[in-house]
C-alpha cells in the first residue's frame, strides 16, 4: 500500500518517543502530527482528521481513555482507527480501551519501531470505516 499520503497523529507525552516515532514514520513516507497531551491531541485530531491515531493512555490534562471516548462521540472523528500504544497491560485497561472503541491495543515495550511500522501499515490496510 502506498503510505505517502497517509497522515498519522501520535498523542504521547514523552518527547523522546515522539521524536523517534516521527523520524521513523516520516522516513517511510507518512505525514506525522504530534501532540504532547490529551487536550492538544483532541484539537489536532478534529482539525487535521488524520487517517490513523496512535494514542498513549497516561497523558497530562486529558487521559487517553477520555480522548478515546471523545473521538468516538464526535461524528467527524468516530471512524478514524485509533491504535492504543501504552505500557499499561492490565486486563481492565485493555477491556476498557476496546470497549471505548480502540481499533487495537499495543504494548510499547513489545514493539520495535520497525514492528510498529508493519503493524500500522496492516491496520491502515485492513481498516474499513463503518458507514
Amino acid at each position, binding site marked *: 500500500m502506498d503510505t505517502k499520503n497517509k497522515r498519522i497523529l501520535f498523542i504521547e507525552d514523552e518527547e*523522546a518517543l515522539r*521524536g*523517534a516515532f516521527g523520524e*521513523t514514520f516520516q522516513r517511510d513516507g507518512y505525514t506525522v502530527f504530534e501532540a504532547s497531551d490529551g487536550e492538544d491531541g483532541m484539537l489536532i485530531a478534529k482539525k487535521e482528521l488524520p487517517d490513523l491515531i496512535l494514542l498513549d493512555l497516561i497523558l*497530562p*490534562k486529558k487521559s487517553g481513555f477520555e480522548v478515546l471516548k471523545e473521538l468516538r462521540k464526535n461524528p467527524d472523528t468516530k471512524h478514524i482507527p485509533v491504535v492504543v500504544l501504552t505500557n*499499561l497491560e*492490565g486486563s481492565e485497561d485493555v477491556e476498557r480501551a476496546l470497549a471505548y472503541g480502540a481499533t487495537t491495543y499495543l504494548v510499547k*515495550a513489545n514493539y520495535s*519501531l520497525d514492528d510498529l511500522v508493519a503493524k500500522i501499515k496492516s491496520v491502515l490496510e485492513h481498516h474499513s470505516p463503518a458507514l
Partner: protein
Amino acid sequence: MYMRILDSLNIKKQCAQYRVGLWQCPQFLFLIMGMIIIVAIAATNTLANRYVAPEIAALIVLALAGVLFVIGHMIVSAFDRVARSARSKSEFISIISHHLRAPLSAIKWQIDVLLPQNQSGRLQASESAKYLNAIRENNERMIFAVNDLLDVNRIEDNDIVLCPSAFSLVELSRGAVIKFSQLYPSRSFSLHIESEDITTMQVYADEEHIRRVIQHLMDNAACYSSEGSSIMVRIVPEEAFAKWSVADEGIGIPPQDQPRIFEKFFRAQNAARHQTGGLGIGLFVAKSLVKLSRGKIGFSSAPGKGSTFWFALPIVK
C-alpha cells in the same frame, strides 16, 4: 453502614477481592471452621453427657469451644495476612513493571533510530546527541526508580541502617539548591536563612537519608509547579528543632487527597494529570526516613496556589 455489613457477609465478593480460590479464601475458611466447631461441640456434648456428670460435661464443651475458636481465628487471621500480602506484592510488581517499562521502551526506540540500518540519510551530530542524551536521561530515570523501590522495600522490612552524625542542614540545602537550579533551569530556587546563627546550627541525623528527603521534597516542588515559578527553601529554628521547608507556587493538593498524601503509591488526582511519570513513593520514603531520624514531617497546601512541605530535626546543643 448496612451495605458494609452486607458486603462483609457476601463471601463470594470478599474472596474475589483476594483473587484466590474458594479453599484459599480466609472468609470461606472461617465459615467452614465455624461449622466444624459447631459439629465438634455437639459431638463432645453428646459423648460427655453419656459418660460424665452434666456440670463437667458443660465445662468440657465450653473449654473445647474456646480452644477451637482461638485456633480457628489464628489460622484464618494468618491466611488473611498471607492473602493481603500476596495481593499487595502483585500490585507492587504491576506498578514497578509499568514504571520500568516506560523508560525501557523509550530507550529501545531511541536505539532503533540511532542504528545505521534504520537511517535513511545519516543523522546529524546534533540529532544523534539528542537521542543519546534522551537514552542517558531514561537510564537515570530507571536508576532513580529502582533506588526508590529498594528504599520502600527496606523501609517495609525494617532493614534501614542508620548512621547518624551532626551536620549542617544549611550546607546540605545549599548543595541541593545548586543541583536543582541546574536540573530545572526554568524554576527559580532560593535558600532563605533568617539569621547567621542558623548557618552554624547542626542537626543530628543520618545525613545521607536527609539528603534523599530534601531531594524528594524539592523534586516534587519542581515537578508540580510551572515554568518561571519560584521555589523557596527556608531553615528556621523552632524550640529544640531545626525546621526545613520548601514552598512552591504549584498546583497544590486537593483537600480530599491531603490525608493520603504520604501513603505509598498514592498520587493526588491533579498530580497524575500534571505529571504522568511519578511513582507515588517519594513522600512515603521521605516521611519514613524523617521518622527514623526521630524528626517530624508535614505540609500545608492550597489547590492552585502551591504547597509547603517541611521537616524538623533535633538540633545538636
